[in-house]
């Protein structure tokens, strides 16, 4: 079984993003970029499936600018076999990404597509579900457990009320939550090896997909700042303030 994994290039999760003074967008100039943390977990899971003899090949895909190659190399260093960069400098909305992925699925015929549940930049949480819809595949979203058998996968999903276990028919699209696994660090020899692994560059047009805007970004603003509070010296003072000043207890 082939496994297709997606990785998105995003701002490093430790960086506090700033809004541009003209409110057109956030400022990504000179900020540290990384693999979306959820995608790292997706790559790790795919590589583990290969190590366990359940997957035969791990193909990793990213869509975006030329420099998303860096994130693909990271995935290759973690153990993916080959990479596809679908290069575009335009704003790629989730539905467009899903449409290109649907074409790649048609070509590659993977048994599983493993994706992050959300990108930490736009926090959309939608691309995997959209891909599943476009390909008519089953979907297992927000998963923190995975058991693959011949024609189905059992997934443990993190839901509002607790945990839910579903059996989804293969091929399936899975989107991963944070507790599925802890991704490995790539070793230096593997980073060197990754440089020689195949990385193919394509464009959305190669897949017959036109990049279409479904939304227009009108404005980006910083969130309302909270008023700075005070430090209290004791539990007694805290209780007094909560009772008489804030009036919440």
């Amino acid at each position, binding site marked *: 079984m082939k496994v297709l994994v997606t990785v998105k290039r995003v701002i490093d999760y430790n960086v506090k993003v700033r809004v541009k003074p003209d409110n057109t967008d956030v400022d990504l100039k000179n900020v540290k970029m990384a693999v979306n943390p959820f995608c790292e977990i997706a790559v790790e899971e795919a590589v583990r499936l290969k190590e366990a003899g359940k997957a035969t090949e791990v193909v990793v895909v990213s869509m975006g600018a030329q420099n998303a190659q860096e994130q693909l190399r990271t995935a290759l260093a973690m153990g993916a076999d080959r990479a596809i960069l679908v290069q575009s400098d335009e704003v790629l909305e989730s539905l467009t990404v899903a449409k290109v992925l649907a074409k790649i699925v048609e070509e590659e015929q993977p048994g599983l597509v493993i994706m992050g549940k959300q990108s930490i930049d736009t926090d959309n949480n939608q691309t995997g579900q959209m891909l599943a819809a476009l390909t008519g595949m089953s979907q297992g979203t927000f998963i923190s457990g995975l058991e693959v058998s011949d024609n189905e996968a059992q997934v443990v999903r993190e839901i509002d009320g607790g945990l839910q276990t579903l059996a989804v028919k293969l091929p399936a699209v899975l989107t991963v939550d944070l507790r599925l696994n802890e991704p490995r660090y790539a070793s230096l020899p593997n980073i060197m090896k990754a440089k020689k692994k195949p990385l193919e560059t394509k464009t959305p047009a190669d897949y017959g997909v036109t990049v279409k805007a479904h939304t227009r970004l009108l404005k980006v603003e910083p969130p309302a700042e909270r008023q700075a*509070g005070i430090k209290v010296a004791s539990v007694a003072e805290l209780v007094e303030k909560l009772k008489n000043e804030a009036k919440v207890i």
Partner: protein
Amino acid sequence: MAILLIAEHDNAALKSATLSTVTAATQIGGDIDLLIVGSGCSAVADSAASVPGIRKVLVADHAAYDHEIAENVAALIKEIAGEYSHILSPATTNGKNFMPRVAALLDVGQISEIISVESADTFQRPIYAGNAVATVQSLDDVKVITVRGTSFDPAATEGGSASVETLEQVSDTGLSRLVSEELAQSDRPELTTAKVIVAGGRGMGDKAHFEMLDTLADKLGAAVGATRAAVDAGFVANDYQIGQTGKVVAPELYIGVGLSGAIQHLAGMKDSKVIVAINKDEDAPIFQVADYGLVADLFDAVPELEKSL
């Protein structure tokens, strides 16, 4: 304009997140039809019909929709989407699961987790873990939207008189089936609607010590929440997690104990009305958003706080 609103419910009543979504729908304007989909969910229809502002309650009650299996629910919604200009659902794990599937089936984008309605096609939503707020305009004919419950007041539950219609068609894709569910049992209020929340972090030390917060919460009639670090360490179950990838909460009073205030955690609680932080490190970032900060060892402060309530 007509809006189809997919209800979040527990087979007995509408969840508060649905009522908040009704408010968002009212702000968009137009007729609002409420879809109740599930298995054994017909009982919800009556109470739903009395929510003011609803034109029609649609009920799809069938085993195929048990636990709102996304493939089947999305197929049903696509079928009835017809002339609706907007399709809305609360941004719960159910809504987040099936709504993008609906959007793709309709060949439109989705606007995720809106926090305000600017006009019928323009909305605000948080991005970058809430460090920025984007105003986005939808260019699609049908607008598929999920709504953050804490950003809209819940609609009233009495006074309306919607008609109730049962949907006969069944969409069963046979793609997924439920194996089991492990739901948290608790007498405490739900995190997303609680007026008071006590949340603990890695500083609680271990599972046994985390239970100190239960006693405090019981005194305050509060819900208990946690950081990802506390969940990862096994102190509490995943449904306690507050933050960018957990639940978003906005109680009247949030008390954070032994947690540092990472941006991913703040993303889920910084709209709380009053924030209290108890941390032994006076430089912990949580103090930058706290209305009342107490620099203290939690193992002294929490028992003392509990006693003085």
